């Protein structure tokens, strides 16, 4: 049953992905720029531009280019960047682990801080703790990550000097040969404590900035659901039954409050990967977000399309996982 459901969802995701491919291809090609001129360089003459056009197959009709692109995608090829001539697939493989690591750390912060704070806020509803966390939540969603990132850099890097300003490692530190490409994990796998702490120092600020909107959303949703759940009859019954308070909150209420929270986590995970575009630019975090921005500024659309597909795929997978987890948390949904 579950297998059929997953297969159906995956098929749907495939259709949506194809839609996304069409959309990004159209957007990339209606933009009034000439990728051949970009490939040929700023002072290139006409013959050079025309040669670059032939080299990259840009002289072919648009439908032919599209079919070729889709064909390449089907074989796991994302095409070549016109700015560097490099394979976009190879670039994505190089940059994606950095983005994934950043998102995982940011999401961990969101979960570890957001869920307990939401619970506490609900338990102390309308008391000072609740007010403080609500203000925090509202500002967390409202603060532009770009500005917040610069502010943190100013405070923690320039004034206090506690943390580095940007990058992923110190300039003189040789990054180790990647195992997963995620530095924190790789340093743990290698047992390299110095590298772990160094990369931890570099990831704190961007992860904090990236986590804030997610943390704030989780907090708000979790709080309101907990407030509802704590009012519910089954909690009153459990309380009358003599269930210890921590169990009442952490098991009975939280489990029910987690359903909508889970939905927001899935949604936020999708958003997070697209928000890396801003955060990675501010912190020069060498991930797919920065790759997309640099390419977009240069008018190099294959990488932008590649990143868009990755972000879209990530959204779809996150939704799928959330749907499946719904079934785990709520037995009523399993057969639905």
């Amino acid at each position, binding site marked *: 049953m579950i297998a059929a459901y997953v297969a159906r969802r995956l098929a749907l995701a495939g259709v949506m992905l194809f839609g996304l491919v069409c959309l990004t291809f159209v957007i990339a090609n209606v*933009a009034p720029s000439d*990728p051949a*001129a970009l490939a040929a360089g700023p002072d290139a003459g006409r013959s050079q531009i025309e040669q*670059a056009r032939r080299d990259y197959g840009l002289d072919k009709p648009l439908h032919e280019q599209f079919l070729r692109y889709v064909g390449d995608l089907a074989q796991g090829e994302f095409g070549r960047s016109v700015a560097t001539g490099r394979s976009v697939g190879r670039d994505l493989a190089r940059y994606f682990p950095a983005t994934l690591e950043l998102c995982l750390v940011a999401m961990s912060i969101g979960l570890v801080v957001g869920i307990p704070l939401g619970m506490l806020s609900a338990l102390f509803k309308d008391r000072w703790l609740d007010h403080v966390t609500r203000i925090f939540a509202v500002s967390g969603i409202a603060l532009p990550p770009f500005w917040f990132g610069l502010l943190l850099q*100013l405070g923690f890097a320039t004034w*206090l000097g506690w943390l580095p300003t940007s990058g992923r490692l110190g*300039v003189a530190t040789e990054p180790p040969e990647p195992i997963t490409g995620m530095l924190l994990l790789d340093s743990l796998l290698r047992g390299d404590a110095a590298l772990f702490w160094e990369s931890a120092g570099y990831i704190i600020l961007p992860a904090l900035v990236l986590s804030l909107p997610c943390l704030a959303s989780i907090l708000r949703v979790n709080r309101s659901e907990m407030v509802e759940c704590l009012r519910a009859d089954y909690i009153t019954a459990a309380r009358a039954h003599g269930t210890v308070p921590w169990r009442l909150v952490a098991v009975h209420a939280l489990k029910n409050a987690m359903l909508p929270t889970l939905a927001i986590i899935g949604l936020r995970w999708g958003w997070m990967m697209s928000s890396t575009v801003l955060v990675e630019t501010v912190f020069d975090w060498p991930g797919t977000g920065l*790759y997309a921005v640099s390419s977009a*500024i240069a008018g190099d659309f294959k990488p932008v399309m590649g990143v868009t597909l990755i972000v879209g795929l990530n959204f779809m997978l996150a939704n799928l996982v959330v749907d499946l987890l719904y079934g785990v948390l709520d037995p009523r949904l399993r057969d639905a």
Partner: protein
Amino acid sequence: MNTTRRGILAGAALLAPWQAMGFEREGGRKVLVFSGNQAVPVLDPHVRYDWSTRMIQQGVYDALLKYVGDPPRIVPWLAERYEASADGLTYTFHLAANATFHNGDAVDAEAVRFSFERGLKLNAGIAWMLKDFLKPEKIVAVDARTVRFTLERPFAPFISYVPWWYIVNPKQVLANVSEGDYGRKWLTENAAGSGPFKLRRFDGNSLIHMDTHAAYWKGWPMGEANRLAGAIFRIVREAAPRRAGLQRREIDVITNMSPDDMEQLAKLPGIRNEDHAGFTTFGIKFNCQTGPTADVNLRKAIAHAMDYDALIAIHNGGARLMDSPFPPGMESHISVPGIPRKDLDKAKQYLARSRFPNGDIELEYVHVQGLEDPRRIGLALLDSLRPLNIRLNIVGQPWTTMVARGSKAETAPNMTSVYVTPVGTDPDTVAYQYHRESWGLYYGMSHYENPEVWRMIGEARGMVDKPARLAMYAEIQRRIVADQPEIFGMIPNRTWAMRDYVKGFQFSPIRFTGEVDLYPMWIEA
């Protein structure tokens, strides 16, 4: 307890292993960290150049000749001398005997021949400089240390472009050819040069680490004792973290800062600014073919209405006005008499003679999205045009969009603001921007038309008689100004902020905007 800021910082330094305490070191030597906002997508010297790319290329490669100093001079490098034939067709270069590539191979005439052939055949990046005048088969390695170039026809700027043709090691390149690509894929991220630095780590999007080549055939100007261990180019896209990095001594030299930032940085202890008159011109190109600006009188009216003082004020004084299409310092530059300055009466007279005697038109001014100075210059122009009853629509567009629009006269905006850095010191480099052949390229967005000027430009590039050639360029400058294909704007200063322990900085305006020559630099501390 009395907690002081210094106390907090001292405590923080103990707690935080990331606290920067000074320049990077490696063994007993120091590492120079340079930061700018632009990536290095392709290192291949025959495929791409821009300021950041060329800075690294100049580090790992050598050319036959090299540009140094201010005003820029061409000095012998891999070639210890050269001769040109009287007819301007043949150039013979004699190579230094001791030059070697990083792997120990000799830099010989065959390497030079191969490199020029590769540059021409790839037909990318630098190829445009020579491809119409030099055929690969006309480059001959006469003996191991002599190479001769025979041009198709005289081309006076030839020598001015030679410093940008870096010499690659043919053996390394040919060993890394994939699918007949002339080693292009491999050289994108690897180097095969003889330059003062060896490539150690290349991530063009974030960081490039080079080691000094201890056995560099040319030696080290600061002496072996002061030679750096290496240099790191770190790409930091936002100005604020770049500035913070400099203040924290994580970075030793930064560039691409706003005039306001530079003013503030100059006040900080331990930091000094380098501020030099550059070669990059800023012009507002009119569309001379279609729309209202096809009318020369309207163009002249606008040029006389422009508030030129604003151009300098926007740069906090760090710029000088153009007095010719050529930047000062370029051979044959003259200060063209009567080049427009703000004169509202004249502006109104020209307007009266135009097809729009009462103004009442709206013009589009396009600048590169995200660039603050051209946007502010647009605002100054908007104010300047009010007395003529001309409205201005200021539009920021991505560079690629702007260039694509400018590639055809039908789609080119009425006015487009463009910075242009001449690639060589020869006047042809700038003059050719006004030739018919440059129509549609980013510096030819004005689609300027004057067949007589085109003829003169074409003739001047082949002239061997120097005084006659300079006289021709003087006339070309006067005629271009008379036709007003653009508002000749200003030349902004080039600026870098650096820690005061950085020594050996040598400015040369021929280098691109943020580019520095890392070879003579070192750290004294």
